[in-house]
């Protein structure tokens, strides 16, 4: 390489390399940030927030009805299983109300002391 006529430009070449490598890494970061948004949106979609709120509200309001509510509890369980693909169990024993919900992705358990 000693035969190169002029070596004054070496710094410019080096700077060019450094800058292009920086741009390369910035591009990797931008590329990854989209994946983060995608994953977050998907996990928000998967989480059955409205289902759980609806289930709780129905369980609480059915408790206020006079008389036997076994039939209503059975309605909630059957319709959850057949239409919402979620296994739901509601039990009320010795002053403790438990709600269990599992749709295969999210499981939710709640225990209330009455």
């Amino acid at each position, binding site marked *: 390489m000693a035969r190169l006529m002029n070596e004054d430009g070496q710094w410019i070449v080096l700077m060019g390399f450094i800058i292009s490598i920086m741009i390369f890494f910035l591009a990797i970061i931008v590329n990854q940030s989209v994946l983060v948004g995608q994953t977050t949106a998907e996990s928000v979609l998967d989480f059955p927030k409205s289902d759980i709120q609806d*289930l709780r509200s129905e369980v609480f309001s059915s408790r206020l009805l006079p008389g036997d509510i076994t039939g209503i509890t059975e309605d909630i369980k059957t319709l959850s299983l*057949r239409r919402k693909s979620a296994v739901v169990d509601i039990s009320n024993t010795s002053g403790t109300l438990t709600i269990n919900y599992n749709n295969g992705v999210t499981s939710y358990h709640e225990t209330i002391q009455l």
Partner: protein
Amino acid sequence: MVEDNAILYTIEGIAAGILLITTAYLIISTTTIYTPGDTHISDMQMEQLGYDVLAVMDTPRLDGENSPLETYIETNNETGFRVEFLNLVKSNSQNWPENIKFKAVVYYRNQSSAIKIGNYTFSHYGNTTGSEHLVMVTRRVLITNMTTIYSLDLGPENRNQSVLLEVLMWRD
């Protein structure tokens, strides 16, 4: 004799070329991912809107009263449900024309039948062509007076029960 004077420039050229192509690939592949994400987001917004509207309709206006949604189902008031649902779904501060269509079906449990669940179409507005983005929202409704539904012979038994209202929504 072949001279090797320019060998450094050749290596430099190849390295720069690889860097440029890889960077361009990364940037182009970044923008293409946005498309499927976008459709999810607008579907998600409509789903949330539907759930909220049903929750509002299933809230009693006064303490001790039945909720409007329960009353509509109990009296099989198809028109009342349609008017209020569309009114709430389309309410926005700018009065933009919203073109939302829906089909509402009631699912109930049948104690005596082996099939266990049944359904009847409660209310609908518009027809699907099959190319719309359909969004399903649901709401469990507690029915405390089944006499009208039972006398209309729509399917459910005459007892207090929890039915599942499924509303299929789409923008036309």
